[in-house]
């Protein structure tokens, strides 16, 4: 439903600038709106500016100078410190190794299931979709302990497999549901025609339907990427080994890896984490906004 808002907005707003209020009243209102927007931007953006400036301070400057002050010397070394001594580099690598396979597996399985549930015709498909949906309601705490036992018994603990498998499983409900919804706009006749031409239905799924929902795949993939990358609960449960920590778990325990708290590297680590996701948002913000909100409306 959020899909077509930009178009509608501009059309609507052009008309909405109808007659309202006299000129002086309008000017007063303008000022009021500007003040609200300015306050909003300060509240949203200043914390990040402060964080970035603090990440460049030496420990001494952080502890002894005013919190508003600029760094006395710009300590870019804080970043290399966080990356190497603070192990953020290793944690980013772990996160990528867990997130990328989980994302690929989830999208592949979810798209196939969405196709089977929406395009294929069989008894019990709406019930099956409901079974998937039920997974979105149940809190993850409900599955952690049995999974922990299984991973422990099968010897998977101590690898990144518990994370990959759990992320795939917990991400499937939303993926299946969103992909099924996207397939709703693809006419069935397309596949019937294709199969008459001699292609099997499995082939038609792969060569015809997947390219058609390419855009949806990117959207769902982005949404799930943020969910998994930012996850703490599952990562905290299944990474009992320090070398397996994901970015979020590593950041949470960051102070422990130095003798005493090093504030500069800590802030640098927070910055790396925040600006990393922000960078993706910078390029794909419209897609991210559309994806996250449509996931909410449908879910």
């Amino acid at each position, binding site marked *: 439903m959020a899909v077509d808002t930009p178009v509608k907005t501009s059309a609507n707003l052009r008309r909405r600038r109808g007659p309202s209020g006299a000129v002086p009243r309008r000017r007063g209102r303008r000022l009021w709106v500007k003040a609200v927007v300015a306050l909003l931007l300060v509240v949203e953006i200043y914390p990040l500016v402060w964080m970035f400036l603090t990440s460049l301070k030496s420990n001494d400057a952080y502890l002894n100078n005013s919190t508003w002050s600029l760094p006395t010397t710009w300590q870019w070394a804080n970043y290399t410190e966080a990356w190497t001594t603070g192990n953020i580099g290793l944690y980013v690598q772990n996160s990528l190794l867990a997130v990328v396979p989980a994302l690929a597996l989830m999208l592949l*399985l979810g798209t196939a299931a969405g196709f089977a549930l929406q395009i294929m015709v069989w008894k019990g498909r709406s019930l099956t979709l409901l079974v998937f949906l039920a997974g979105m309601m149940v809190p993850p705490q409900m599955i952690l302990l049995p999974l*922990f036992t299984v991973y422990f018994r099968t010897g998977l603990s101590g690898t990144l497999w518990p994370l990959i498998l759990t992320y*795939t*499983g917990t991400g499937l409900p939303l993926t299946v549901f969103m992909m099924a919804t996207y397939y709703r706009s693809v006419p069935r006749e397309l596949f019937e025609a294709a199969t008459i031409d001699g292609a099997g239905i499995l082939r038609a799924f792969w060569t015809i339907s997947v390219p058609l929902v390419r855009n949806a795949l990117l959207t769902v993939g982005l949404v799930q990427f943020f969910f998994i990358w930012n996850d703490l609960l599952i990562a905290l449960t299944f990474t009992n080994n320090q070398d397996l920590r994901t970015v979020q778990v590593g950041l949470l325990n960051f102070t422990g890896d130095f003798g005493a708290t090093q504030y500069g590297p800590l802030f640098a680590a927070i910055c790396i984490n925040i600006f990393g996701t922000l960078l993706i948002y910078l390029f794909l913000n419209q897609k*991210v906004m559309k994806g996250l909100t449509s996931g909410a409306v449908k879910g």
Partner: protein
Amino acid sequence: MHRVLGDRRAIAILLGPALLVYSLIMLIPMVWSLGYSFTEGNSIDGFTGNGVANFTRLLDDPAVRDSLWFTLKYAVVVTVGQVVAGYLLALLYVFFLRRASALIRTLVFFPVVLPTVAVGLLFQKLFQVAPQTGPVNALLNAVGIDSVDFFGSAGSAFWVLVGMDIWRSMGFYAVLLFAGLVDIPDEVLESARLDGATGLRLVRHIVLPLSLPVLMSSLIFSVNGTLKVFDSIVALTNGGPGNGTTPLTLYMFQTSFTYSEYGYGSTIALLLTVVCLLVSLVVYRVSRRDLTEG
């Protein structure tokens, strides 16, 4: 005619893997966890059945009562805060900023994609007193108020948490609700204006009822998320001071992994699940009734 689309083998190949993974990771563990609630022990020492002992303990446990109360209080306050702040922003976008709102929308939205752990640590530093006076306390000092130890008492820590979660998500709800507001036909607004409805009256009698459906789905989504809050609390207060800001999710986690009581942990998880389902059901019922009345 639907012969090719009803090909059972193809359906099995397409749906099978997803259903298998979903069952192994979600469905079976859910039932299994239910079974754990009648046992004590953990995966290293093994499990022994203990009947309904966990459930009687659950009823008498003051920590459960506290964390359940905290979970509900947090869910209500943050849900209302998120949706109200989001709605006000959406009204601002639609009626005041108009065409200029795209950039502001994008800017206010971004905190929702940031890692909660990083945001939690950031807010911890923003509100701290020691070792350095953080920006918020420095601001208070500047206007002549003494520094407040926000994380020293459960009450103030709760409000920092609420503030942080509203900061993170108001832009998200604003975009969600914005989509609902934009769908209101201009003709309706124009004719209401011609009838003399302006400002608050226009919002109350025309805009609010017409955006009720999307408002309700935001509410459901928000409650569902806030009942399961975990990351932001672990990162900001870790449940403290004492267990003053411990929700059920965190209490379950501590019981299971700090004290290795998997049986009792599963019982708490079950309680959490029941609470989530009950609250969703109630909100859903109420929203349905409101819609038919509206």
